[in-house]
């Protein structure tokens, strides 16, 4: 029998010479291969007897284990070295970049969605009507007879088609949606109607097309105090402020009685408007209790039902909230403006998340 001490020395000697994975493989074959030194020794064990065999086998297995351990640890060591080397050669300049751009949502759409979100939470549904309207829906049904002076203040656009002998108009406000909705649905009604409106006026502060949102609540008890409560929640939520000075002033709209205009307080800091507090007032919307004549025009009994309506300009809301100074830029399609004032498409207004 061989002296195992010699074998151990030989193993040690060979294991010091590893330089790469191949040398490890050679080492493995030399000792553990089919004709490897250890394998041959194992075969020879068969010729030994009893106790001797057991003794030698134990010893030999220990040596075999140590060889396996050496192989595992040296392989790991070499692999790490290899990876390290590779990593050192694989560097990229992170200051280089490619670009990815997103599109934008127009501020008008953003504000309309914000308004819908706030009123949706208050159980208002979104109603709609066409942009070309009948004279009846736009004026007469709203208690504005043909020669009412309020009509002249509207600077109406007319088109060549007629309905019931009267020329159709581009709606001058979103209020005709009240009429269409009330003809379709019986009270209780809670709706808002955002949309495009048109007036024949074009200067620094007027655009021939603009957007409004109409609100209408009809039931058996809604009164001026509910109107005030409704607008207070809306304006606070919209302007994302807890403090809001709000002022109701008498005004006149043929389709509401009493009518009111609402101002909100603001202060100016440099070029910035701070909405909510302050001594100065900004007009923000018109509103009032729906005129009984309007209810009767849509066959709703005005002794049983009452309610309120309001209307406000989307552009004005957008300008005040987002600091946009010129009304006419909304429709100018200047992409520099759109990219600056536009909103991320992922930024869907939410009551639980962010409104804007």
């Amino acid at each position, binding site marked *: 029998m061989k002296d195992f001490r010699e074998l151990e020395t030989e193993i040690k000697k060979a294991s010091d010479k590893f330089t790469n994975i191949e040398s490890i493989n050679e080492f493995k074959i030399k000792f553990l291969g089919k004709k490897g030194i250890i394998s041959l020794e194992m075969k020879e064990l068969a010729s030994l007897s009893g106790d001797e065999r057991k003794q030698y086998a134990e010893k030999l297995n220990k040596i075999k284990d140590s060889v396996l351990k050496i192989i595992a640890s040296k392989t790991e060591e070499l692999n790490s070295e290899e990876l390290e080397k590779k990593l050192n050669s694989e560097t990229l300049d992170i200051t*280089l970049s*490619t670009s990815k751009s997103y*599109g*934008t949502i*127009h501020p*008008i*759409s953003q504000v309309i969605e914000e308004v*819908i979100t706030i009123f*949706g939470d208050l*159980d208002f*549904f*979104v109603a709609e009507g*066409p*942009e*070309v*309207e009948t004279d009846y829906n736009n004026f007469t049904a709203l208690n504005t007879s043909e*020669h009412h*002076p*309020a009509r002249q203040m509207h600077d109406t*656009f*007319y*088109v060549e*088609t007629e309905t019931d002998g009267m*020329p*159709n108009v*581009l709606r001058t406000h979103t209020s005709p949606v009240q009429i269409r909705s009330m003809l379709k649905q019986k009270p*209780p009604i809670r709706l808002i109607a955002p949309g*495009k409106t048109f007036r*024949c006026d*074009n200067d620094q502060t007027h655009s*021939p*097309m603009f957007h409004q949102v109409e609100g209408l*609540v009809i039931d058996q008890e809604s*009164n*001026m*105090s509910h109107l*005030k*409560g*409704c607008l*207070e929640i809306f304006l606070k939520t919209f302007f994302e402020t807890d403090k809001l000075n709000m*002022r109701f*002033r*008498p*005004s*006149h709209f043929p389709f509401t*009685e*009493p*009518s009111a205009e609402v101002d909100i307080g603001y202060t100016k800091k440099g070029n910035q408007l701070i909405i909510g507090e302050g001594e100065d007032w900004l007009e923000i919307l018109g509103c009032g209790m729906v005129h*009984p004549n309007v209810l009767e025009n849509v066959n709703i009994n005005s002794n049983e039902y*009452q309610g309120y309506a309001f209307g406000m300009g989307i552009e004005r809301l957008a300008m005040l909230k987002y600091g946009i100074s010129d009304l006419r830029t*909304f*429709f100018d*399609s*200047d*992409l*520099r403006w*759109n*990219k600056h004032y*536009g909103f991320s*498409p992922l930024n869907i207004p939410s009551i639980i998340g962010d409104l804007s």
Partner: protein
Amino acid sequence: MKFSYSWLTEHLKTNAHFEEIEKKLTSIGLEVEDIQDTGKAYKDFIVGQVLEEKKHPNADKLKLCKVDIGKEKVDVVCGAPNVEKGMKVVYAPVGSTIPVNQIKIKAAKIRGIESYGMMCSEYELGISNEHDGIIRLEEKETIGRSFSEIYGLNDIVIEIGITPNRQDCLGVKGIARDLASAGMGELLERKISREKGSFKSPVKIEIQDNKICSAFAGRYFRNVKNTESPEWLKNKLKSIGLRPISALVDITNFVMYDENRPLHVYDADKINGKIIVRAANDGESFLALDEKDYHLKNGMCVIADEKKVLGLGGIMGGESTGCSTETKNVLLESALFDEINTAKTGRNLSILSDARYRFERGIDPNSTLKGIDLATQLILEVCGGECSEVELAGNIKENKNEVSTSSSYISRRLGFEVSDKELISILSSLGIETSQTGDVIKCSIPSWRQDIHGEADISEEVIRIKGYENIPTSNIRLKSKINKNILNYAQKKLMKARHFIASIEYDELVTFSFTDSKNCEVFGDINKLKIVNPISEELDILRPNLLPNLLQAIKKNKNRNFDSFSIFEIGSQYRSTFPEDQLNVACGIKSGIKTEKSWKNMQTEFDIYDVKQDLTSLIDYLMPGNKKISLSNDCPSWYHPGRSGSIKINNSVIAGYFGELHPRVANQFKIKNKTNIFELYLDELPNTEKKTTNKPVLNLSDFQIVTRDFAFVIDKKVKSEEVVTSAFKVDKELIRNVEIFDLFEDDSLGKDKKSIAIKVTLQSNEKTLAENDISEISSKIIESVEKSTSGTVRS
């Protein structure tokens, strides 16, 4: 409506501060729009006298003046042609601010000569357009006296917005009355002597049509002198921006602004026979006081004599009977014209006048004779002469409105308790007389409030006087929902589409719903889309399509140096100008550079496959689940005929188009880049409102996936889709996917041939596919594709 504070206090006895009155005006619905403290603006200007006047040595048109301003004598260089020695002038000292341009006067050398201060024209002081020369004050003015005192400008001028319902506040007295009702003081009654008249008017009055004019009171004055108005009257008119003309005209204007009572004066010597109030006939015309000829139409209310039309009732008088300084005998008119007829006539002839403004809003019938009395007193006082008895044609009907209400109705509407007592007290402060029977309160509306017709109007009066700030705030959240959905399916679709399109790099634009008909012949029938009164020629029709405005936007931005465009709009386009002919469309454009040349990429440009992918993925997003999409080349004429397609969903209507803009249209909009567009007709997308929240059952196979590639040579005109579908249909269960991975055209393939290579993915739900299964299905695929494309497989 403008008025001065001093004028107001002629009608209102008050202890309130001006600031209180200002606040109260707004809080009762007479919104203060502007306040000018003219005393402040003119405080520095004083009377001076020119002592010397000689030529400027260095300038022909300038003069050197020495001006006495009381405490000293100053040198002033002046350019006015009318300056002369001895003249009394308005002097603006160094440090004062010229109202018209807000320039502060400094001591300065003018052409080498020192000048201290300035002598002013009416224009420079902002009181008229007169700028031909400086103001010549009367000889008697004391040097050093404040100019604002002389012109009656030592006052505060208030401008308020009057809503169309408040005709009662178109006179200073009405404003005072409303303030008094709101607790701001006591309404003073002007003392007017009631002249009986010493003779019968020689001019008779006949109303032929009492629908358009219910009453006409006339009074004849003889031997008047139509002089310049006295200073108090001129200053009063000037303070509210009116130009004094002559005593007779100024008096009628004064009565109109004071009592809200329009009047008119005729030179009676120019009237032929009697006054006839009648409806005009087509073809009649007359020359009005604004020196314009008006052509009248049937039914307009005219004041005529026996020969011709003298004026338009309630709107404007005529040139022929206008009063001049020579006028000796006068007819004064105070009438009641019909509101609607006045409004119609005024609108028809486009005449805006103070009289029309008042008559179309409704005039207090009781002012008819009061107006005559007040004007009579002033005419006799200023112009002398004697007056006739009042000649009244027609009837002055007081038609007082009666309205019944109750405190419970008012409380229910306003949202807080109003007691009977409070209600009655507020109403009586407004001059509304009440009588109570049980709960019902009967209100008798005074003649000056033509706007109160019903209970709702009473509720507004109550809260107006009580103050809107006293309305409480109530919670509006409901215990149970009344609306099932906030947005309906169509509305959600629009919102989803907007966010999806913006998420694939498009910027949303909102453009006008109008456009230029000249660019639109290709897009629709422009004759059906005309706006009668467009804002400009370039915006003369409703848009038949979203494209024209978006193409304009591209052109505009091109000039701003943009070279890559991804823009879209979601909005309505119109088939005609009937309300129901409006469609919801999403339209996107990608044009120009897709990827910039960079260290990593070559420059690439957008092509129709970009917009095709955007459109199909948009449809997939809006209509998830199974659907059949079919393509055809059938596109509208604004698309390039060979580079465009239409998309049909489930074999029903066409839902959208994609493709390259027709070169002729591109040329029309002066766009040079290839413009790739998609249009999705959102209303045409079949409704896929979710019926259930469950998703379809998912069957997953764990057996091996195999892919096989095939290439076919086919005719160029055969659509590649044909290869894909004919491969797919061989085995719908085993074939999981078919994808085109290569396409090339080369003469070596044969004339008009192309090669298409597909990758087919196979997987079974039951077993691992064996080689013979695969070769069996492969030959079936080859057979199917060859048959349906008449092509051959490449080996």
